[in-house]
């Protein structure tokens, strides 16, 4: 059964939408990632206009982050003080991002910037994750490896406005998480992602937060950032497709449950290695699309 999406103004088969939600939900449940970085390019590939895909995906991520954060909250794995500083930065960044998005769209460069951001950030994160998981797999094969320091100290720890984060066992400048979240917020708004795939490694390696509070805290802030993007895009560009978001959500919720069950059967390093390969693959594919000569050098679009 085909369904006409009122905002996207395209007709897609309902099974395709729910299946896409389910498939991406499965992977996100398995790997513990949001899945926005997979969903948004796939939606664009299916013919959903890029602005609609990005804004709608923000709306869907609100839901998946809420259900994710509740589980972490019950286990007490959310650092709320850190979360509030991150969300302040995230709201500022994502508001800027939405503004930047509409400017780029008007000058016809939004597709390019979306694809470039994907290539660059997925590429960097993919390589880092792959290296890290290879190292981890090697380490498990060499028993007796030494455990390193909790985290490395660098120039970031010398900045002013220091705050003590009890849950994260950190005493660092509030400016670091604020600007980190602001930067990720801009990317969130442009790429149609929650930003967890950048925020999580940054919180672990840059801020030095313990891994167990990172996921819950990042999910907590992603709720607010994506909610902010949803509302701003609704007001500025009217590109949030509520019907599309609802159907994706339905599939994703179910898929995530199955994914989580498969995920526990695999080892952490293997999981991260697989995720890294997937992220890298997507980055290479999108990068390749930018380099090969397009079939038609001209394109036509309806402008507002």
């Amino acid at each position, binding site marked *: 059964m085909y369904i006409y999406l009122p905002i996207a103004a395209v007709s897609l088969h309902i099974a395709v939408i729910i299946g896409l939600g389910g498939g991406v939900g499965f992977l996100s449940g398995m790997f513990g990632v949001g899945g926005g970085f997979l969903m948004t390019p796939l939606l664009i590939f299916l013919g959903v206009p890029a602005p609609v895909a990005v804004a709608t995906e923000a709306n869907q991520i609100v839901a998946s982050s809420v259900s994710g954060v509740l*589980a972490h909250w019950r286990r007490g794995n959310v650092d709320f003080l850190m979360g509030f500083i991150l969300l302040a930065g995230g709201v500022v960044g994502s508001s800027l991002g939405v503004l930047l998005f509409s400017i780029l769209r008007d000058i016809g460069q939004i597709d390019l910037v979306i694809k470039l951001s994907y290539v660059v950030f997925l590429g960097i994160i993919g390589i880092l994750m792959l290296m890290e998981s290879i190292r981890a797999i090697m380490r498990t094969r060499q028993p007796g490896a030494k455990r390193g320091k909790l985290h490395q100290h660098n120039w970031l720890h010398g900045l002013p406005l220091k705050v003590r984060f009890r849950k994260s066992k950190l005493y660092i400048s509030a400016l670091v998480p604020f600007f980190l979240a602001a930067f990720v917020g801009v990317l969130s708004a442009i790429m149609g992602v929650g930003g967890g795939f950048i925020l999580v490694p940054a919180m672990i390696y840059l801020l030095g937060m313990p891994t167990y509070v990172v996921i819950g805290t990042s999910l907590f802030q992603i709720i607010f950032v994506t909610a902010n993007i949803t509302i*701003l895009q609704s007001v500025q560009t009217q590109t949030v497709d509520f019907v599309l978001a609802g159907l994706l959500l339905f599939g994703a919720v179910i898929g995530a449950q199955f994914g989580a069950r498969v995920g526990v059967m695999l080892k952490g390093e293997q999981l991260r290695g697989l995720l890294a390969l997937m992220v890298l693959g997507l980055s290479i594919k999108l990068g390749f699309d930018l380099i090969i000569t397009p079939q038609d*050098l*001209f394109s036509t679009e309806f402008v507002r």
Partner: protein
Amino acid sequence: MMRPILIVIIGLMFGSSEGMARQLVADLSSDEVSITTDFTGQNLLLFGALSNLNANSATDAPSDIIVILTGPTLPIASRRKERVSGIWINTQTVQWKNAPSFYHILSSRPLTQILPNDKLKELKIGFKNLGLKSKNQTDEIENLEIWQESLFRNMTAQNLWQVDENAVSIIRNALFRAPVSLPANITPGDYQVRILDVKDGQLIAEDRREITVQKAGLGAFIYQLAHEYSVFYGIFAVAFAISAGWIASIAFRRN
């Protein structure tokens, strides 16, 4: 569906008093199209009677029908990519001043066989005869042709522009019918339908119809909400997502 309509027209034709009706009469199987949530495009039937009802079908040259469907004019932009340090980037834009969002031509024979080129130009029939102008005046004429070709190509690929020179069937030199296909990606608005009856390179009669395309049902409601109460819509979308996430977490915690 076809046959009853034809029978009615044939009945009308022979019922009318001879020598009076030299008019072109056309109608559509429906002149209202609703874009509902299950919309995947719509096929309509355009049908009618030729104007030369009294013509002797055996001796007279048959007349031809050209149907021109034009959708609302929207701001359309064409962009051209160039390779900049290895990657393909949109570098030039032409904003079209008067390009229709939808333009289908249906005819009973190839257009150039029906009418001479200057006549086609005069009647603005055919992509090249639309007199497309760009908003950016700096473009040179010869350059503009490449841009126009690209617009024809891209709009045709989306099924929004089309020329089908075999679509109109003429039955016994008295009746005609043509399938009108509106794809799923059409823009709501008023669609003008011009029906031309042409004989010996001369336009002998013309009729006009209009198709109203509008969003309807739940989809229309959501679209309207998104555009007219956008703040409320955004807040509602977020509230929905939060509650959906919350319900999901409760539902799957129990098992």
